[in-house]
């Protein structure tokens, strides 16, 4: 508020550590921000202009006379992801003034298995004619409970978001920097985010084939290890969209199936992917440049970076990545963000297919024009 003065903020976007008492955290924010529309979520680390942080909170205030916004939230996404998405969409649309819609900034629960359904529900409620971007909320890699913020209320297992419009200009960029390293494998059996068979063999045998039995046994015991995030699964995007859609294996099930962080379609071709810190950081720069391409002047930006990237890059390179994003956006551009369990954005290619896929190990930069 001090940095923004004397201008009046129009809306707030917040990222907070899951270690905090979430309601107390939001009450604290509300005590300063009052009834300002606010959306956000818990993270696996917060991003500030100075770099990645842990056990902190970051708030971005947006002041714009032309901007219009409304908040929407949906609950019970674990059991009814599609309906939760629709609920959030209808709530946001109901409150939105009769102006042009530009974008929907979403914060979905990162532990919900049907995140793709959740987003589909959103799109059904809001339409696909405008940008949809956001992240799946995290909980500092504890995989226990994540939170979504909507107007001073902290909820879990839901989805919240900001419907933006009016004269506000929004640009997005999403990249990951991974390339295939293994031969292709056909997904012969899968349901939602669970991968049962590859080439008619138990899915985990692929990991054993490439990683060896010892490492795979170790990965079975821990979630989200550096080894698992270093080699995500990559699928060619369906519907003729170019590029690779990445999936993290978040759990090895006893029956040999692999639980992924988002949907894996049956019949798709799948390969193990690999990256290097250098190419990952280059991808972040590309994402930042994509985000500002359509904007004349950048007012501020939000970064949704994959929690897996932070694990993979390590603390030094993660800080360097944020520094390079800032450099690409302009060092004076205010920037905050969070490390998420999934990133989603309607990129130019995906728009043609009327879908907003859930990515992982990616950097999503959402830039707001002045």
């Amino acid at each position, binding site marked *: 508020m001090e940095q923004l003065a004397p201008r009046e903020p129009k809306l707030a976007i917040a990222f907070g*550590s899951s*270690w905090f008492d979430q309601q107390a955290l939001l009450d604290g924010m509300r005590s300063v921000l009052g009834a300002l529309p606010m959306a956000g979520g818990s993270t696996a680390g917060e991003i500030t202009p100075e770099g990645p942080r*842990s*056990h902190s909170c970051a708030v971005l205030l947006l002041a714009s006379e032309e901007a219009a916004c409304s908040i929407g939230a949906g609950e019970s996404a674990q059991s009814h992801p599609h309906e939760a998405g629709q609920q959030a969409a209808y709530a946001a649309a109901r409150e939105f003034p009769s102006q042009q819609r530009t974008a929907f900034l979403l914060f979905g629960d990162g532990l919900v298995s049907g995140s793709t359904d959740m987003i589909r529900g959103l799109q059904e409620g809001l339409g696909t004619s405008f940008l949809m971007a956001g992240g799946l909320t995290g909980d*500092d890699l*504890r*995989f*226990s409970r994540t939170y979504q913020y909507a107007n001073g209320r902290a909820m879990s297992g839901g989805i919240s978001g900001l419907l933006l419009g009016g004269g506000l200009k929004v640009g997005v960029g999403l990249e990951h920097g991974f390339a295939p*390293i*293994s*031969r292709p494998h056909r997904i012969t059996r899968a349901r939602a985010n669970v991968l049962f068979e590859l080439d008619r063999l138990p899915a985990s045998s692929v990991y054993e*084939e*490439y*990683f*060896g039995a010892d*490492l795979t046994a170790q990965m079975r*015991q*821990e*979630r989200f*290890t*550096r*080894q698992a995030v*270093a*080699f995500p699964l990559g699928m060619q995007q369906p519907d003729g969209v170019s590029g690779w859609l990445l999936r993290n294996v978040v759990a090895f099930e006893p029956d040999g199936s692999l639980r992924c962080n988002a949907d894996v379609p049956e019949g798709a071709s799948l390969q*193990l992917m*690999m990256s290097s810190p250098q190419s990952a950081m280059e991808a972040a720069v590309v994402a930042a440049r994509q985000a500002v391409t359509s904007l004349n002047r950048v007012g501020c930006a939000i970064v949704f970076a994959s929690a897996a990237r932070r694990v993979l890059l*390590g*603390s030094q390179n993660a800080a360097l990545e944020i520094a390079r994003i800032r450099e690409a956006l302009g060092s004076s551009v205010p920037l905050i963000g969070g490390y998420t369990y999934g990133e989603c954005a309607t990129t130019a290619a995906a728009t043609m297919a009327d879908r907003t896929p859930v990515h992982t190990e990616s950097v999503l930069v959402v830039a707001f024009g002045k």
Partner: protein
Amino acid sequence: MIAIYVVLLISVLTTVVLMAGVGGGLQLACGGVLLGSLAYLTMRVIGAEHERQELAKLRATYAQLDQQAKWIIRADLELHHAQEELDRRLASLMSLHQLGRQLQVSLKPEEVFQKFDAAIVTNFGFSVGLFGVCPTMGAVAWQSLVGVTPEAAERLRVHVTASGLLKQLLADPTPRLWQAGGGLNAAQRALLDLLGSSSAVVASILPHSGPAGCFILCRPGVRVSTSKADEELVKILAHQLSTAVENSALYEHAWSEQQTLERKVQERTRELAEANAALTRMNKAKSDFVSAVSHELRTPLAAIKGYASLLNSGQFGTLAQPQAERLAKIEKHADLLTQFITNLLDIARIEAGRTTMERRAIPVQEFLATIQELVQPQLLAKRLQLAIDRDGVTELLGDAQHLQRVLVNLLSNAVKYTPESGRISVGLRRDGASVVVTVSDSGCGIPAEDLPKLFQEFYRANDPVNQQIRGTGLGLALVKRIVEAHRGTITVASQRGQGTTFTVMLPAAAEPPAP
């Protein structure tokens, strides 16, 4: 493939023509076509074989590349694993370092346990941490909770105290890793269940002084590493905590002792101040008493002296020789008593602050000449030599009358204690902002044990020489008070048989009046 069918069709037609025995020219032509077709077929078969071989080579290369990808992945994974371990160790060490700095400023043992937050716990590779103080072997009070609700912490507290785990823990100075399936007893397994974790690190904090404590660290969902380095880190953490608790307990003890000491010092200072005030009151009462008594004594003494003088004058008839001698003794003793009372009165006046010392420039030459004149009869009587060295000092600052008494007193003493034909010297010199006056003699000297008491009232050295010399024991006491009233000092140095030197230091310039 179509070409092969065409070649086969041509071959079949050619064969049919040959078998039908159609014209010789035609048969020849058909034979040529047949041969050509067979050659073409042979070439195609060879080509197909070559393609199969190429395909097999490509497949082998593809498999090799895939195999190489596996090697790369495994090598990369090993590197990642090593990097992850290194990062974790680094974070743990940094955390230990930061924690050490934070713990240094813990002033109370309980504060040590309150320094733990989520950042420290996660840097050590855990997500849940409980740190507690144990006032007794059977009780624990959590001071820091990370990643666990107060309700769950309370359940854990009840369990560790009721099951006796806490006692076991506090009896063991070595941190332990408890892993499900690792030979744990029922209470230990129940603890892991309550934590929702398959393993946990438990450790006691056992300082030499200060309260004991314990901590539990775990990461639900993850099997905690059991490497030697991890054990060492937890050991260092436990040791660091013990030291911090010990230091803060010692600090607390030292602080408490210091407070007690300060309180005692204040009490003693107050008592001393009160005693000092009482002494001052008593001293004043003494001075008043001495002053009053002296005044009361002076009146009859003056009468005694007056009547003795009258008798001696012969107004009441001529005195017989023995009478005259006794009368002379009366007069002499009356004079001595008068002198004694005068000294007593002067000391009392100076102590009571009723005597004002003038601060005027005194010409040294005249001053010394007067003194020399006063002591000259005594010097002559014992044939003593007096040497005076002014060393260029022309002026003294002070009350001429009182300083004269000082010098006369010192010189009289010197005369008394110096054998006949001895030597006495008076020296003056400038020393910074002071003038130093020394009176030395070649007399018998003063025993070392008597020197510290020399300036006390009524003190006289107990030696055979002193017993033969008359004195009141007030002369040097008066000298000291006069010198101190001038803001000066007087010291004495003496050796048996080597003579004595009194040194008087007087301010050379005027100073502001005493408050």
